[in-house]
């Protein structure tokens, strides 16, 4: 082995090989299978975490849309809506209005 120096650029093949053997954990197939199996669950976890905000946003949008549609459908009649038919009834009536009904409040 060479004299060690902090300026060594070369790898120490003897030390490297000895360490490699010391650190090697052997056959990796069981490890690989375990990681890949866990990865399936992690992927779903990640997709679920991405989906959660999307689902929340969709619910908010659906609620807002439902509220607006509901308001449009059950909109109360406006003043014009209420007055125009009454005028039309009076003006379009073939006979004169009943004076008894018109002056009923003044007779009290």
């Amino acid at each position: 082995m060479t004299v060690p120096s902090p300026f060594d650029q070369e790898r120490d093949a003897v030390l490297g090989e000895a360490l490699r053997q010391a650190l090697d954990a052997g056959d990796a197939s069981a490890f690989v299978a375990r990681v890949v199996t866990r990865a399936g669950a992690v992927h779903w976890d990640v997709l679920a975490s991405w989906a959660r905000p999307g689902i929340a946003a969709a619910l908010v949008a659906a609620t807002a849309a439902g509220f607006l549609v509901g308001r449009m459908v059950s909109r109360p009649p406006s003043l014009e809506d209420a007055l125009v038919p009454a005028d039309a009834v009076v003006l379009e009536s073939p006979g004169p209005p009943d004076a008894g009904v018109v002056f009923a409040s003044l007779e009290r």
Partner: protein
Amino acid sequence: MSRPADGAAPADDAALAARAARGDREAFGRLVQRWAPQARRVARAVLRDTDDADDAAQDAFLSALVDLDRYDPARPFGPWLMRIVANAATDRRRRRAVRRAEPLTSSLPGGSRPDATAERRVLGEHLRAALAELPERQRLAVALFDVEGYSHADIAGILGIPEGTVRSDVFNARRRLRVLLEDWREPT
């Protein structure tokens, strides 16, 4: 530059990483297969217990899977992954109660050398014990340099320290480990 066990080109890693990021489980499996031996060794340089090291390596692969969109395919995959492995192993070691390694002197053979068949196994045990005596950063530095073949610059990036510190760590770790190896091979 260090390559995985099957000598795959960096472009292959980038392509597999891109596929894995899109949810291709088979591509992820091939990446794990390629890099598992190296990841397990690096984790074991930090954690002496094999099961702990494998758990840390697994955590690292799963973290890498989640963060694959952050991997720059223009750069080599190995240093990026080894940084995650080193962090996972270091985090695990810190979280767990530190199992103090036996002092190296107490684990050295008491005079008679083992036979040839057992020699390698015992040398491995001694080297792991010697590694455990080193500061964690030195362990990682020497494993990444002499075992995995990364450059000083790569290791500086992996460990997040200056290149000069890497050189110093490798030098100090080697000096100590070399003494052990010399003693082992040339007993007096």
